[in-house]
């Protein structure tokens, strides 16, 4: 394997909590992927899909049950001291002593970090400099996340692990964080992030993988992942017309269709061909297709199709960028 090209190599990775058999729980089930240098790789998944369990193995916080992890060519668990100085980690839920100020916290962390940035520079990166004398316990959740990010960036890491970096941030802070992550990537930093904001993955990721029940069920560039899901055409048939009156659907490239109270949805992998056929038919028959709407799949649709609807009570598919009701409490996101 060419270590020069891939910064993170994962093969056949498994992580099991508790004993073998029904007592235990296998959170990560045989996953493999690689992340190239300078690439931004996003790990998506619903609650309990295994994202955090996977990232913790990559960070060297735990030993895999089976399989292999290489970060910068080293085993991050067994060769911790070789890997840690070159990576930056932001946990899903990190902690800082409540009674330290922001600046004191960064100073402490800097003392533990090889080649640390100056405190002011690190805080400036995440726009927290003016909060430097505030005690941790007085920070908002979003400010804590930004401080956490500042610490992850303190050692100018080659590889950055971000576990839900923008959860709890307001929209402005989220966009600032995206800008920062883009800038770091432009400077050559390899980034692996987990997120449940699909918008975030779509905006930032070069490559992404969608996890479900401990397995990677779809991966590739955002375009590839989206492209593997059918486009949709929706319309209503005028009174007196029925689906059976349409040309044979298979010939139009339709892979699936649904009808509900006169509204029809066609799914196709060849949107242009299906749409052309449909419109030519409508002109020929002089039929008005009411509410005609055609769209390629979005990452959200792909995600929902793969991961299934959110947990009970969650409005699945609530607008673009909506959190999918995933990943509540750190440590439980097995």
């Amino acid at each position, binding site marked *: 394997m060419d270590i020069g090209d891939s910064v993170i190599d994962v093969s056949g990775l498994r992580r099991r909590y508790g004993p073998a058999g029904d007592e235990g729980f296998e959170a990560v089930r045989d996953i493999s992927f690689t992340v190239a240098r300078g690439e931004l790789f996003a790990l998506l998944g619903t609650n309990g899909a295994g994202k955090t369990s996977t990232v913790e193995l990559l960070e060297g916080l735990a030993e895999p049950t089976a399989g292999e992890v290489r970060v910068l060519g080293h085993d991050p668990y067994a060769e*911790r001291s070789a890997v840690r100085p070159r990576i930056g980690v932001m946990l899903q*839920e990190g*902690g*800082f002593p409540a009674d330290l100020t922001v600046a004191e916290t960064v100073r*402490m962390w800097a003392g*533990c970090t090889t080649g640390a940035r100056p405190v002011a520079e690190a805080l400036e990166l995440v726009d927290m400099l003016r909060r430097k004398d505030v005690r941790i316990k007085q920070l908002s959740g979003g400010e804590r996340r930004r401080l956490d990010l500042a610490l992850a960036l303190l050692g100018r890491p080659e590889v950055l692990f971000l576990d839900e970096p923008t959860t709890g941030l307001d929209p402005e802070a989220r966009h600032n964080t995206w800008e920062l992550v883009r800038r770091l990537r432009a400077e050559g930093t390899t980034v692996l992030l987990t997120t449940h904001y699909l918008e975030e993955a779509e905006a930032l990721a070069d490559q992404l993988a969608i996890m479900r029940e401990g397995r990677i069920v779809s991966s590739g560039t955002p375009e590839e992942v989206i492209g593997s899901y059918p486009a949709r055409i929706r319309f209503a048939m005028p009174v007196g017309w029925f689906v059976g009156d349409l040309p044979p659907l298979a010939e139009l490239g339709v892979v699936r269709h649904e009808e509900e109270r006169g509204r029809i949805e066609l799914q196709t992998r060849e949107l242009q061909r299906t749409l052309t056929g449909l419109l030519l038919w409508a002109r020929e028959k002089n039929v008005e297709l009411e509410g005609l709407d055609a769209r390629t799949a979005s990452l959200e649709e792909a995600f929902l199709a793969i991961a299934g609807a959110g947990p009970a009570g969650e409005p699945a598919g609530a607008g673009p960028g909506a959190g999918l009701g995933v990943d509540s409490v750190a*440590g439980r996101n097995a």
Partner: protein
Amino acid sequence: MAKAVSISVPRMTALGRAEFILLGRNKMGLYVALLLPVMMVWGVRRAIGEVDLGEAGMSVNEVALTGAFGYILLFAVYQHLVSAYVARREELVLKRLRTGETSDAEILTGTALPAVAVALAQCVLLVVAGVLWLDLRSVARPDLMAIGLLLGVAMSIALAAVTASWAKTVQGSQLVTSPLMLISVAGSGLMVPLEAMPDTMADICSLLPLTPVIQLVRGGWLGGMSAHEAGGAILTGIAWTIVAAYGAKRWFRWEPRR
């Protein structure tokens, strides 16, 4: 591939400095670390005034002041550190620290540095006060005293790390520290020297973790400890420290149980 064991002084100092700031901002912690040992010594001195120490061949002041080292180790190091480890664990600070370059041993030791500094300062103060104002002799065997203190500090840190795994909250840490505190006060010669105990009881008590520490400190200050006695105490102390360190490595929890 072998895991490299390296101890970085700058990293531990950085952690120790932060922990020192936190100690200064924690009134309960300051009370436990600074005031309690003094108050305990005061109380003990009054209490053992009633005990016949003729057999032990020591004065009340000698027993109280040498026993005071035990109180300092128990309160300023052991109990304070159990609270500190539990607090940092529950705040997820330990989990966060473990993602960095700092090794596990550095995290535990660095966090302990202020407590150790406070305890050693108190010990020095105790010797100075004893010699200048309470008519105790100057330290007879500084080497034995230093070894005793070193073992005491190392053992207290390791025992604190083990004990911290039993408490879920800082309040709970008061409870889980009490067994060792009570046993040590009663049996390790803090109040009643082993020499004043019946033989069988003294034999059993000599195996308690803090006993060799007190014996070394006491013998180091007051003199009269044979090489055989000193060697035995050192070995017992080392054995307890190793057992406690192993226990800490095995059972210390780095994140809250959910």
